[in-house]
C-alpha cells in the first residue's frame, strides 16, 4: 500500500496569468507573473487560490466542486484546454501559462461565461426529453434495457466544461456551431427510447453547418475532453443515422 509522502525538493513554480477586468476597461489586457513554492498534491485549484489569497486578491477564476464534476474551471493550461482542479502541478513544467478559454465571453481574468453558451446550446438542440405522453404518477416506470441505460449514461457524463468547444476549430469561428458538447448531447437523446423525436425531426436539428456536418473532423475535442467521453463513437453514430435519413429523403 503506497504511503502519502511529501515532495523531496519543492520547485518554484512560475505562473504567467492572463489579466483583464471588463469592469476596469482602462487597464489593458496583460500577462502577469506570480511565483509559488510547489507543495505536495498541489493542483491548479490550490495554486490559484494561494495566489489570490497571498499575492493578488483581485484575481478572478471559477471553481465550485474542485473534484472535476461541476465543469466550472476549464481554462487554457500551457495552450491546452483542461480542468484546473484536477491538474496536478507535478505533471506540469515549472512555467505554467494560464489563459481563459476562447469562444466564451470573458467575465474577468480566467473566468468565462460558459453558462450562457450552454443554455443557448441546450435551447438550440432541445436538450430535454420530448415526452411521448404526460407523466403518470400512478404508474410503474417504463422499462429500459440495462445496456441502453448504460450507453445513455456514457454520453450523459458530459460536464459542460467547455474544453471541447475551446479546442474546436469550427466553434472558434462559427458561434452557432453546437460543438462536441452539443453533438454528444444530441446523440444521447437520439439513443433514448423515451424521446419522441424521430430521425426526421433530428435531421432538422443537426443536418446543417451548425450540426454534425459542420464538424471538419479535426477531433481536437476528443483529445482534450477531461471526462474521456466516447466522442468518436457518438459522431459515427450521428453521421450514420443522418446519412441514412438524408439519403432516404
Amino acid at each position, binding site marked *: 500500500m503506497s504511503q502519502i509522502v511529501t515532495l523531496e525538493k519543492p520547485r518554484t513554480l512560475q505562473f504567467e496569468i492572463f489579466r483583464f477586468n471588463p469592469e476596469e476597461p482602462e487597464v489593458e489586457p496583460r500577462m502577469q507573473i506570480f511565483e509559488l513554492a510547489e507543495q505536495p498534491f498541489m493542483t491548479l485549484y490550490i495554486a490559484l487560490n494561494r495566489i489570490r489569497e497571498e499575492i493578488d486578491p483581485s484575481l478572478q477564476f471559477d471553481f465550485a466542486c474542485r473534484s472535476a*464534476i461541476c465543469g466550472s474551471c476549464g481554462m487554457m493550461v500551457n495552450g491546452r484546454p483542461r480542468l484546473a482542479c484536477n491538474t496536478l502541478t507535478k505533471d506540469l513544467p515549472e512555467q505554467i501559462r494560464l489563459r481563459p478559454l476562447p469562444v466564451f465571453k470573458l467575465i474577468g481574468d480566467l473566468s468565462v461565461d460558459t453558462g450562457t453558451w450552454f443554455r443557448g446550446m441546450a435551447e438550440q438542440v432541445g*436538450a430535454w426529453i420530448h415526452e411521448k405522453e404526460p407523466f403518470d404518477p400512478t404508474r410503474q416506470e417504463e422499462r429500459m*434495457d440495462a445496456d441502453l441505460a448504460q450507453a445513455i449514461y456514457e454520453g450523459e457524463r458530459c460536464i459542460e466544461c467547455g474544453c471541447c468547444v475551446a479546442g474546436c476549430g469550427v466553434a472558434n469561428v462559427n458561434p452557432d456551431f453546437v460543438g462536441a458538447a452539443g453533438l454528444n448531447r444530441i446523440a444521447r437523446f437520439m439513443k433514448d427510447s423515451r424521446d419522441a423525436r424521430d430521425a426526421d425531426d433530428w435531421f432538422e436539428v443537426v443536418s446543417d453547418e451548425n450540426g454534425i456536418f459542420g464538424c471538419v473532423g479535426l477531433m481536437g475535442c476528443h483529445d482534450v475532453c477531461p471526462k474521456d467521453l466516447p466522442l468518436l463513437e457518438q459522431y459515427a453514430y450521428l453521421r450514420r443515422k443522418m446519412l441514412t435519413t438524408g439519403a432516404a429523403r
Partner: protein
Amino acid sequence: MQIRTTDVLIIGGGLAGERCAIEASTAGHDVTLLSLVPPRRSHSCAAQGGMQAALGNCVKAEGDEPTIHFLDTVRGSDWGADQEVATIFAHEAPIAVRELAHWGVPWTRVRPGRNTYFVKGEKVEIDEPEDKAGLIMHRDFGGTAKWRACYASAGTGHAVLYAVDGEVVRLGINVQDRVEAMSLIHDAGRCWGAVARCLRTGRLTVWLAKSTVVATGGHGRIYGQYTTNATINEGTGATLALETGVVPLGNMEAVQFHPTGLVPSGILVTEGCRGDGGYLLNRDGERFMVAAEPEKQELASRDVVSRHMMNEIKQGRGVDSDFGPHLWLDLRHLGETHLRTKLREVWDICKDFNGVDPSKEPIPVRPIQHYSMGGIRVNKDGEAYGLRGLFAVGEAACWDLHGFNRLGGNSLAETVVAGRVVGQRVAEFTAKASLTVDTSVAHAFLMDAQKRLALWLDRPTVGDDVYKIRDAMGEVLNQKVGVFRNGPELESAVADLRVIQQRIANVGLRSQAGGLNPELTAALRIEGMTKLALITAEGALARTESRGAHSRTDCPTRDDSRWLNRTLARWSSEENAAELRYEPVGLLDLPPGDRGYGKSAQEPMNESVEQHNERVVEGMRDEGYLPTVEPMGSRMQWGAWQGHENMPMRPERNE
C-alpha cells in the same frame, strides 16, 4: 434604483431550487431563479452514489415499501426527525424517482439472470427475475433494511441535475446566474423578495416577489477546507434568513461527517463504495467494522461509522501520513469492470487526485464534514417560521427529515421530493398572493446593502485578512466541533469563534477592483459564516446529550427525557448574539428506541407518546410554525410501521 418584479423568486439553482421552480412555473407563475453559478455547476451535481426510493425492484429490495423507508429514516435521525415530514417524504420518493426517469435520468436498470454482488464481505450470486427486467435497479447504502438507493453509476446527482435543468430550459424559466442575494426584503412578518448583487458587475438589483424560496444548499464551508462541500457552499441562504432576526435556524449543531473523504483533498468518495461491498481497513489490514458493528458492518449509519473510524485512529491503528492519520477504503475485490462502470466517478477521482488505481490499491480516507442537517426552519409546507411568503427547501432548510443524522441517499431524494411538495405549496400561496409591498421598504433594504458595500470599500487596504479569518474559523470547528465533542472543547470553540467574529472589524480590503471583486465577495460572506459557526458551537455546547451525529464524550447518553427536541437559533443584532430556544421534535408515531446499530445508552422519555403529542401542535406554533394548508398531523400514517418484518430492531411501544 433598479427594481424588478416576479411572481416567485428562487434563490439557489441546485436541484431543490430547480425542482421547486418547475412546479411553480408549471402552475403558470412567472419564476425567476438566482444562482451563484450556472445551475448545472451547483453542488447537487456532486451527489454520487444514489437516491433513496422504496421501489423494491431487485431481489435484495423485495418487500420494500415507503413505511420501511420511513422507519429507516427516523431511526437514522436518532428520533430527531419530524415524523410527519419523514412520512410524506418516504411516500413521495418513488413518484419523484419515476418522474425523473420520465425526464430522462439514465437510472441503472435491473439485469435479469445471474448477478454477482458483495454482501457483508461475501461474494454472492443472485438471480434477478425476468419480470423485473429493465426496472430501476437499487444498491445498498448505510442504515437501510433494504437495497433502496436508485443510481446512475456514481454520477447520480449529475444525471438528475441535468434532467431537471433540462426541464427548466424547456419551460423557459428565467435563470440569472452569477447572482448572489444579499438580504431578504421583509416587513411586518411578510417576505417580499431580495436585494441581489451581480457577481459579474458588482451591481445591485431589487427583486420583488409574491413568494421567495431559499434553496442555497448547505454551509459546509464554515469548516474551511475540512469539508467535502463545494467552494460555493458558504451558507449564503442560512445567513439571509438569520439576518432577518425573525426566522430561526434549526438544529445547527447537527453536522454530518462522511466516513470516506479522500485524503488529503477532502473530496467525497461515495457511500456506494461500501454499499457495493467495499471494506474499511486499519493499518494492519483488519476490517475493524466487523467487530464494531456485527449486524451492519461497514453499512451502519454515517455518524456511527465515522465514530468507529475516529476511535480506530485514536487507538493508534490509523495509517500515518504527512497529512495526518487515515484509514483505507478497499475496493480491490470489486474488480476493474465494476469500478469502471458502476463506480466510474470514484475511479476517476482516485486516478486524478491521488494517482491511485482502486482495483490495485486501497484508497486513503477519513471522516470529514459533509452535510448540514440544520438549516432554515420551515413547516411541512416548506414555509419559514415567522415570515409569510418565505420558503426554504433542500439542504438549506431544516424541514426536518434528517434530525441528527441523515441517511446516505436521502439528501438527493429530499431535493426533488421537497422540491415537488414545497413547490406545490409555493404555487398555491403565490396564486392567492398579490404584490403589495411599499417600494420605500424595498428602498430601505437597498440602501442598507449599498451602505454595507460602501463601508467595506472604505476600509483601509491593510489590516486583518478575510481568508485568514475563514481558515481560523475552519480550524476551530474542525478541531473542537467535530465527530466527537465535549463541554470544555465546545466552550473553548465558542470563545475562539467570538474572538474570530470580532476580528472582522479589523479586516482590511486589499483589493478595490470593480466588478466581482473576489475579496469583497468573500468579506461579505464571512460575516454570515462566522455567525453560523458560532450558532453551531453554541447549540452543541448547550445540548448536553449525544444524539446522531452530535456525540458528546462527556454526555454519552441519548436523553429523551430532556432533549427530544429541536434547537432553534435566532440572531439578535442588538445583542450581536444568538438566542437558543427549543421546540418539540414533532408528532411521534414511532417511539424512541434502539437504532439497531451504534449501541448507545438511552434515558427514556418521562412522559407517554400521547402526552408528548398533546403538546406538540401548540409547542411548535409558539416557536413560529406557521399554519399549514393541511393541519399538522394530517399526513401521519399512525402505526403503519407496526408488525413490519425485516426490521433488525423493532422498538417497543412506550407505555
